């Protein structure tokens, strides 16, 4: 049994230590908000936060995150009240939606480090997240909008 800290909860899993965190979350712990897209750190669909940094869970082995703070889309807020989620809803960012958990986690990590990113900073922080539906223009606009919401009071 391995003990993990996910979204503030302590959870136990019988997954072997060399299992990628993505599958521990999705399959062993039943948290399917984090998505599988490529398995090779190429698409960003599986992005979670490990100690506040955007991390591709598909290439992150369970053994390497023991004792660290893991945050997934399920832990962003209880009620979609996180400023990034609010901005995403305001702009109706998702289409098929499959990449969006990863996009939102990458955007949130960016805003934690840089509360007012420029377009170029957004581009470079988000370059690892593919969206096949091409929602990029709205993602960029929503990150700016979330930055505004954070500035005017919402916590990131």
């Amino acid at each position, binding site marked *: 049994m391995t003990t993990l800290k996910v979204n503030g*909860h302590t*959870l136990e899993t019988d*997954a*072997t230590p060399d*299992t*990628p965190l993505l*599958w521990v979350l*999705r*399959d*062993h*712990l*039943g*948290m*399917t*908000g*984090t*998505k*599988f*897209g*490529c*398995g*090779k750190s*190429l*698409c960003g*669909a599986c992005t979670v936060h490990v100690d506040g940094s955007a991390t591709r869970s598909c290439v992150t082995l369970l053994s390497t995150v023991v004792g660290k703070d893991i945050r*997934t*889309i*399920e832990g*962003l807020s209880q009620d*979609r009240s996180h400023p990034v*989620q609010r901005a*995403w*809803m305001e702009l*109706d*960012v*998702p*289409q*098929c*939606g*499959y990449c*969006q*958990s990863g996009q*939102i986690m990458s955007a949130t990590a960016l805003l934690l480090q840089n509360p007012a990113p420029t377009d170029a900073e*957004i*581009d*470079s922080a*988000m*370059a*690892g*997240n*593919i*969206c*096949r*539906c*091409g*929602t*990029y*223009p*709205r993602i*960029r606009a929503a990150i700016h909008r979330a930055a505004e919401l954070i500035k005017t009071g919402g916590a990131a």
Partner: protein
Amino acid sequence: MSARPTGPGGDLPAMDRRKFLQASALAGGGLIIGISLTGCGRPSDKAATPGVGGQPNAWLRIGGDESITILIDKSEMGQGVYTALPMLIAEELDVPLSAVRVEFAPAGKDYVNTLLGTQITGGSTSVREAWTKLRTAGAQARAMLIGAAADAWKVEASTLKLAGGAVVDAGGKKATFGQLAEAAAKRAPPKDATPKERTTYALIGKPQTRLDTPSKVDGTATYGIDVKLSGMKYAALAQCPTLGGKVRSVDSSAAEKLPGVVKVVTVGSGVAVVADHYWQARVARDALKITWDAGPNAGLSSARILAELKGATGTPQSARKDGDVDAAIKAAKRQVSASYELPLLAHATMEPMNCTADAKADGCDVYVGTQIQQVAQGAVANALGLKPEQVRIHTQMLGGGFGRRLEVDFIPAAAEASKAVGAPVQVIWSREDDMTHDAYRPPAYDVATAAFDGNNGLSAVHLKLTSPSVTARMFPPVVEKNVDPFAVEAAANYLYDVPNVSVEYVRHEIGINVGYWRSVSHSLNCFVVESFMDELAHVAGKDPFEFRRALLDKQPRAKRVLEEVASRAGWGKAADGHHQGIALMEGYGTYVAQVADISMVDGKMKVHKITCAVDCGQMVNPRIVESQITSGIVYGLSAALWGEVTLEDGKVRQTNFDNYRVLRMNDAPELEVHLIESTETPGGIGEPSTAVVAPAVANALFAASGKRVRALPFAAQRGLV
């Protein structure tokens, strides 16, 4: 953190929705209003399944608890049907969109797409097909509710109206939908119910927030890959690396000893390793020792495919013939000819193929993101020896479709594995599985020839298009006697006013399955037609925009979008060092024109901006229209810049997003969309913009460099992108 229910948005337990409908009727809490499709403007289309018309058709359920549930028969793959289709019914019921719940319909003949003849989400038909059908269904429900109140109150129906989910009279007397549902359901659906006048629309044509957005920002939207059933196992599938090959023998002894492995099952599409957890199945798959029978494609390569298309000797089928092209070419003052090559493309939906099945003695439940429910049902029935009606399809959210989920190749393995282990099984393809076992966009080799007369006027255009046919495999009756209509799009409807036009198609199969890919043959033919138009403009010494415009007097909608895009993009006024290219198309009843703005730095092309003008007729939800247009451009630009699937020894060489590159945020150009107000019948919006971007960029590249790229992708030109 418990298992999620499997309904869309996680709001419904996993059960057959048809049963659910019947059950709720019996429970007395809520009643379905059966809507007859008779007189709904169903096209007298021979493709439509006979016997459907006149059957009560459950599109709408009004509960005693005032809930309004709308069943949608189309799959939600990002194109917005989960919002747009309910809008059509909510409009007729005079309720806000927030008052309705949405459920996916089961597989069934009630939900046959009347434009395409089977239950299918494709061909940019979602709104086009539903437009009259669902508004009429809503109008019938309105008449039935009003009729029920009129009878109860002994007044004329004409004195009553709907407001806020109730029938009201002028004096403020009111009965809610829930109170009236039972009486309304006993009435025959009126045949003459007429949908509301356009001028009275409260919802249609106004931007509405998508109903599926909340579940897509908190991770609760349930895609096929998220389905969890009690006792469910996971499987990884090994498929023959050579397309079309088969298993000869399997040594699974090493794999079976690995932790968690339940069983190794040979299925129709390969070898499935079933384990308690997915990663265990993936690890164990690598321990299989399989001898493959490579089959007929063992020696197939991209070079051979292209050579075959070039040398194809099949009889050309005519798709369009105006005047006498041969005579015009003979009499020509000047002749121009060019040939174009288009590659195989992968769909690369964000959610890799997957399917969950629960095979039991009396049937099988299948949980899957599919665009083609009845065919999926048939494929599982076939694999398990069941009757189609014993297979229950539970459509999930689709993490992208783009035509990939019109194929059912990834579906039966889950059912076969489930039957073999006696438990529900979810089969998940890796990205590599998905990339190397797609039904790829057909490649093409096309020759265009044109003639100018003595007055420098375009007198003839001849297009000879050679490619394999998707339709011949998917819907064989369609091509029995006729040219494949889905191979000659954006060509047979040649827009420009030229006296002699001939479009011919040579069907040439290449040994592997090709599939419908977002915008289907538009993506092939628009590149040819619009690149060639640009070549002709230069030969004629005319501006590419003016050259086109002068030939569009008989096509006012096409002319309008062309003028609109030119004026919005500032045609002819590109910034210093920037260059423009223009392209135009009609597809799915929608007119699209684009201007690409690019620059060249050290011989490398950078796409800065795409301006797009669209006339798609009456819009249901402009907000979704705009996002579908930009989505299509990004998808088409990915393909134009980098998209190419190549084969060697019958194996696909591209495996993941490192060697099948797609557009990322930092590559994405600025996108500007201009939607033209229109009262015409709604056109499709999911696909047309995809096809127009490649020629717009190619034409800009010519303007910038004098280099004419006639073979996609641009990346195949060394150093260009």
